Every structure is written in structure tokens, then in C-alpha cells.
């Protein structure tokens, strides 16, 4: 137990190697990471978690690079340590991954107050990895605030980030679709702030206009469901030279204020934490059940399912003695 306390203390005190190794254990399910997180949990909860999502190649990494610098400059009263988690996809065939987001994050390569961690999605399909929320928690305990999470290149339904982040930024690039695309449910709906990046391209005006019409057409469903009245702003950025990123940072700060003043921060946390508790509960119940499982009767039932004698649903009923 004392060894775990030592690791937790090192993470809390800002030891970067201790944090990096804890993150590896979280990702691998190794060490005694769950108990270390138990120890760190009381020190977490204050970091502003900002999600950045959007299509592959829309400029998320470049934007995060600019954004981290901008947010750091604007922070005087709070500590200026910024955490970045950049998720890229794992191969469904080999499990390997090429994590290339750091290439675009060169402003901070030597900055001791910015911690960038690349994560492979490891089979998760929601746009982030299963361990991403625990990694954010570890960074929070180490004093990083805000924490920027860049998702894998997202299509239309990788919306998991919305249940993890306090503020979700959806990045669109010019030329990817018309007004019907803009009206579809999913990714665009989860935005607290909508960004049209690559604003230097001629088609950006059209894309911004289409999205603006989409925003004014319907009511803001996400906020309304939580009883809130947040107007989703649309920001044009040109991440290649960090153009418009000051305005984006201002909207992020405004959203942070809004979350605290409206009580949405707590609602957001309640949603996220109950999701985590439910997830752990499911895992733990399943593991318990698996431990007392009679493998022989399971195999027998599987043979019957294979021969189409009983349905998968009936097999489960039998396994649970119902």
C-alpha cells in the first residue's frame, strides 16, 4: 500500500515520468492502477475537459496546437499546465497504430508545462479509447487544467466525447457536404462550439453559411435537454497560422463561465461519473458471473446455439437460470 501511496504522491507533485507510467498502466490494465486512481480521485474534478472532434484531416491537431498556446497565454489566475490527449485509431487487424498528432503540435515540444500523450483507440468505436476518461483523471490529479482531448477522425456518430468533455468543439472543414449533411443527427449535435477550420479556403464561406443556417433552423437540443440556454457559436479559424484561435479561446472561456454559472458543470459531471460507475459495475458483475460459470454447460449451450436448436437469447436465459 505504501508503494501505491508513493506513486500517487509523485503524480500529484507533478513528476512527469510517474504520470507517464501511470497512463501506460491505465491503458494496459496493468499494475495496480485502479487503486492509484482511488487515491488520486479526491484531487480531481476541477480540470476543464475540452473535447475536439471532427473529420480526419479537418485540422484538429493543428488547431489544438494553436489552442493550447492561446489558452496558456490567457491564463493568469489559474495554473498554466495544459494536458493534451490525442487519440488515433488502432488497426482492427493487427492492433498496431500510427500516432501522428504530435507532428502538428510542435509549439509545445519543449514546454515542461504541457503534457501531450498520444493514445491508440484500441478497438473502441466511439472516437476515443476506453481508457481516455481515466487518463484525463490522472492528468487532472497531476494539476493539468484544461485538458484537451482530440478524438480520432470522426465521421457522423463517434459522439462518445460529448459524455466525457465539459466543452465539445466540433471542427468542420470546407467542402465536405451540403445542407442535408448539416441537418443530420449525430456529430454536429454534440457541439458546444462549432468551428469551420481552413477558413482561408474559398469554400469556407459557403460551409459556414450552411452551418449557420443549420444552427438557426432548429433549437439547440443538447443544452435544452439539460434545461440550459446556450447559443452554439460558430467560429472560423485558419489553424495553419492560428487565425481566429483567439476568438475560439474566448468562446471556450465563455462556455466555462456558463457551465459554472448555470449549474451545468455539476450536471455534466453527474452524467459522466454515473456512466463510469455503471461501466465498472457491468464489468465487475460480468467478471463475478464468469468466475462461477460452469464452462461445460456453457459449451453445451453453445453447441445447441450453433446447431440452431436454441436461440442466443434462450441460451442466455438458461445460463442465468431463468
Amino acid at each position, binding site marked *: 500500500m505504501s508503494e501505491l501511496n508513493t506513486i500517487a504522491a509523485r503524480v500529484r507533485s507533478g513528476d512527469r*515520468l510517474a504520470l507517464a507510467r501511470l497512463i501506460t498502466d491505465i491503458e494496459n490494465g*496493468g499494475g495496480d492502477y485502479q487503486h492509484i486512481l482511488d487515491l488520486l480521485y479526491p484531487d480531481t474534478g476541477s480540470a476543464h475537459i475540452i473535447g475536439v472532434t471532427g473529420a480526419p484531416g479537418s485540422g484538429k491537431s493543428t488547431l489544438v496546437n494553436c489552442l493550447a498556446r492561446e489558452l496558456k497565454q490567457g491564463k493568469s489566475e489559474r495554473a498554466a499546465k495544459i494536458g493534451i490527449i490525442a487519440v488515433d485509431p488502432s488497426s482492427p487487424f493487427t492492433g498496431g497504430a*500510427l500516432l501522428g498528432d504530435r507532428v502538428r503540435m510542435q509549439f509545445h515540444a519543449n514546454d515542461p508545462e504541457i503534457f501531450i500523450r498520444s493514445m491508440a483507440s484500441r478497438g473502441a468505436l466511439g472516437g476515443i479509447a476506453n481508457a481516455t476518461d481515466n487518463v484525463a483523471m490522472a492528468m487532472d490529479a497531476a494539476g493539468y487544467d484544461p485538458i484537451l482531448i482530440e478524438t480520432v477522425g470522426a465521421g457522423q456518430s463517434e459522439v462518445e466525447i460529448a459524455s466525457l468533455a465539459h466543452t465539445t468543439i466540433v471542427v468542420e472543414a470546407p467542402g465536405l457536404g451540403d445542407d442535408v449533411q448539416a441537418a443530420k443527427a449525430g456529430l454536429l449535435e454534440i457541439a458546444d462550439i462549432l468551428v469551420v477550420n481552413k477558413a482561408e479556403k474559398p469554400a469556407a464561406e459557403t460551409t459556414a453559411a450552411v452551418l449557420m443556417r443549420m444552427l438557426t433552423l432548429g433549437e439547440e437540443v443538447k443544452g435544452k435537454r439539460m434545461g440550459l440556454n446556450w447559443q452554439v457559436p460558430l467560429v472560423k479559424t485558419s489553424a495553419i497560422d492560428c487565425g481566429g484561435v483567439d476568438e475560439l479561446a474566448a468562446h471556450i472561456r465563455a462556455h466555462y463561465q456558463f457551465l459554472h454559472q448555470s449549474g451545468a458543470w455539476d450536471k455534466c459531471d453527474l452524467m459522466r461519473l454515473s456512466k463510469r460507475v455503471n461501466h465498472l459495475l457491468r464489468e465487475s458483475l460480468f467478471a463475478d458471473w464468469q468466475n462461477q460459470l460452469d464452462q461445460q454447460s456453457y459449451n453445451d449451450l453453445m453447441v445447441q446455439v450453433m446447431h440452431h436448436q436454441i436461440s442466443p437469447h434462450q441460451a442466455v436465459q438458461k445460463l442465468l437460470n431463468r
Partner: protein
Amino acid sequence: MTKKIRVLIAKPGLDGHDRGAKVIARALRDAGMEVIYTGLRQTPEMISAAALQEDVDAVGLSILSGAHMTLVPRVIDLLKENGQDDVMVFVGGIIPAEDVEKLKAKGVRAVFGPGTATAEVIDALWEAAA
């Protein structure tokens, strides 16, 4: 617990030839490893900072500029300073034969010259991780 081999592939110094680095990065990815690629013109400080944050098992340095005797030992020293003594360092690129032994004496595990089969690099990493 599922352990993944994590490798940082970096190009220190000023040469802009990253084809080799990208071929290796891709081969390691296809071998099931998680490869962090940092791009061109990295200083040893940038490379060691990335290796620390990413908690990698190995660092691969691709150098074709001739500056390997300056850059590689510096990276190794910084890794050690950061407490990452156990990270395997390997080098690829144009390295004269007489420098290979010198680099190994400094702590480089393997040097891969032109014409190396990617399988050889993969095997070396599996072996180091075992």
C-alpha cells in the same frame, strides 16, 4: 493485462529525408505496435520530452545528415537524465561502419543501414521487449 510495444520514431537534426522513418513507422504499425511519429527537425530535447510523455519502450532515430555522433549520444544522455534508462535506442540511416561500434558503446542497441529488411527491425524490437 495487454501490453503493447510503444515506439517513438524521430528524425533529429536538419536533414529532410523522412522516407525511411515513415517506412519503418508503417512496418512497426503493421507488426501490431503503437508508433508515435514526431516529424522532421527534432532536437534531442524535443525527442526526449516526447519519449517521456509517451512512456515508450523504444526510440528509433533516423539520421542521414552525418550528425549522428553528436545527436545520438545527446538523446541517450537525456533519456537517462529523465529516468528512462531502460528505453531501447536504435538508429537507422547512413552510418559509417566505424561509427557503428562507437554508437553501440554509447548505448545504442542496434544500427540499421540501407537495405535492412523491415522484419529485422521488428525482430529486434520484439527481442528487446521480451
